[in-house]
């Protein structure tokens, strides 16, 4: 069978509050820590939804829109850069699983 790319996989997910232009992020990342002291920048590869990316200068960027609330980054980041909460049902993002 055809293997799916990550964007194709994320395209199958039902995210909440998709119609809202402004959402309240449930994860805050102090990328200053990622880009100055972190020796591994591991969130850029361990995140199952690729919410953490590297630019051409090897700087970490974070976007919460694709987050599927798995929790991985909260444990993987051992530098104190990730502040993790659950999304607000009304104003946040996050998922509603169709199968789960």
């Amino acid at each position, binding site marked *: *069978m055809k*293997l*799916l790319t*990550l964007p194709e*996989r*994320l395209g*199958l*997910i039902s995210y*909440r509050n998709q119609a809202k232009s402004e959402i309240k992020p449930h994860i805050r990342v102090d990328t200053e820590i990622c880009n100055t002291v972190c020796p*591994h920048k*591991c969130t850029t*590869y*361990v995140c*199952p*939804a*690729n919410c953490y990316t590297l630019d051409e200068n090897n700087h970490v960027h974070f976007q919460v829109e694709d987050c*599927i*609330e*798995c*929790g*991985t980054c*909260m*444990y*993987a980041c*051992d530098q*104190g850069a990730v502040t*993790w*909460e*659950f*999304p*607000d*049902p*009304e104003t946040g993002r*996050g*998922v*509603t*699983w*169709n*199968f*789960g």
Partner: protein
Amino acid sequence: MDEKFDCIIVGAGVAGLAAAMTLARNNIKFLLIEKGEFAGAKNVSGGVIWGQDLAKLVPEYWKDEEAGWDRFINHRRLTFIDEESAFSLDFKSRHFNEPPYSGVIVLRSKFDRWLANKVEDAIAESEYSMDSFIATNILVEEILMEGDKAVGIRTGDEKFYADSVIIAEGVNNLLTRQAGLQDKYVPADHILTGVKEIIRYERSVLEDRFQLNGLSGMSNEFVGYATRGVEGGGFLYTNRDTISIGLVLGLKDLRDKELKPYDILNDFKAHPVIKDTIRGGEVVEYSAHVVSSGDKRGIPEKLYKGGLLVCGEAANLLMNAGKAIQGMDYAMRSGILAAETIIEAKSKNDFSITQMKKYQGNLNNSYIMKDINNFQDAVQLLHNPVMYQKVPSLINHFGRNFFTIKNEPTKKAREMMGESVKAHSSYWELIKLGLKGARSL
């Protein structure tokens, strides 16, 4: 809802629903709060509910045609894989065909929602049919404390009060941490990341491919190259007209090896043996969630405070000791035990820490903590690189030689095994592993 509840349960997953069901049947006034749109909306599992506790919560659930479970398990398979081969232990038995089943496969979005409806039915039949509630779409942000005792919860600007709070918030247990029962930062050491796809087939295709009969189902666990050398393993479960296929990956090892979980999942799906097994389906969901490893060091020392109990995966109650990945059955039983502690507390009107401590005692005396304590060696063995890397390679090396017929004089199996051992390990390494294994299982 000005009135005080006997108990507020945070989280309508398996643990929270099991607690709620037990409270409803014993005429306790409770509020069950779920952050998702409905019970199960935020839950991901492999997932098999092992054992027979479900029949305690929903007697004769197998007679319910609209039941939320997918298939019962009568076929188990454990597969060792290397890059090109798969060597399986396969067991199927008529003994597993009759209810109460020894395990049911579930999809949480469907299962939890069904179980929540059963809890609603139990509420309707209780003395508090108008005063107990399941409330969805509400995020609990804080456990309210008075001194060292939990007295309620806060969501936004609203506060709800109760004599007791059961935390059943799942593995990402922010409230448990806030209550000081677990460190604020939990390192990756005893945490795995699970990634999974749901693949849909024509039901007849699925049933033929996996030799399913009626609602029978198969569970297949994988050890070895499934994870590209990362600590962990793979799984494949048959649902009604889909399969759940995925991996659990040791997060610390994933971080060290600098691999992406979704890439490893694609490699697993492209494995020559797996590829044939799953061909032709359509992926309908991709999901991910962290899961605890079952290492006891990950479990909070205390699961109670005055008026406060923690159950399910919020308490990191989960174990894979090689026979099965058990988590939802632990959630169910610990939810029941927590509720029973609250029922006793109400009858004595004593929600003190001394009363709450009984929950921990009951948990320690239950099969959950007995198994977790007894099988720690097995848990650690499964996380030993010899076990998840060398043993699968060795077994498949042997399998290839043993099952190859060459029209030449054939070596005895023992000699072949000797060659496989030399190629991938050493007798000494295996003796050490064998001794550990014999003790641990």
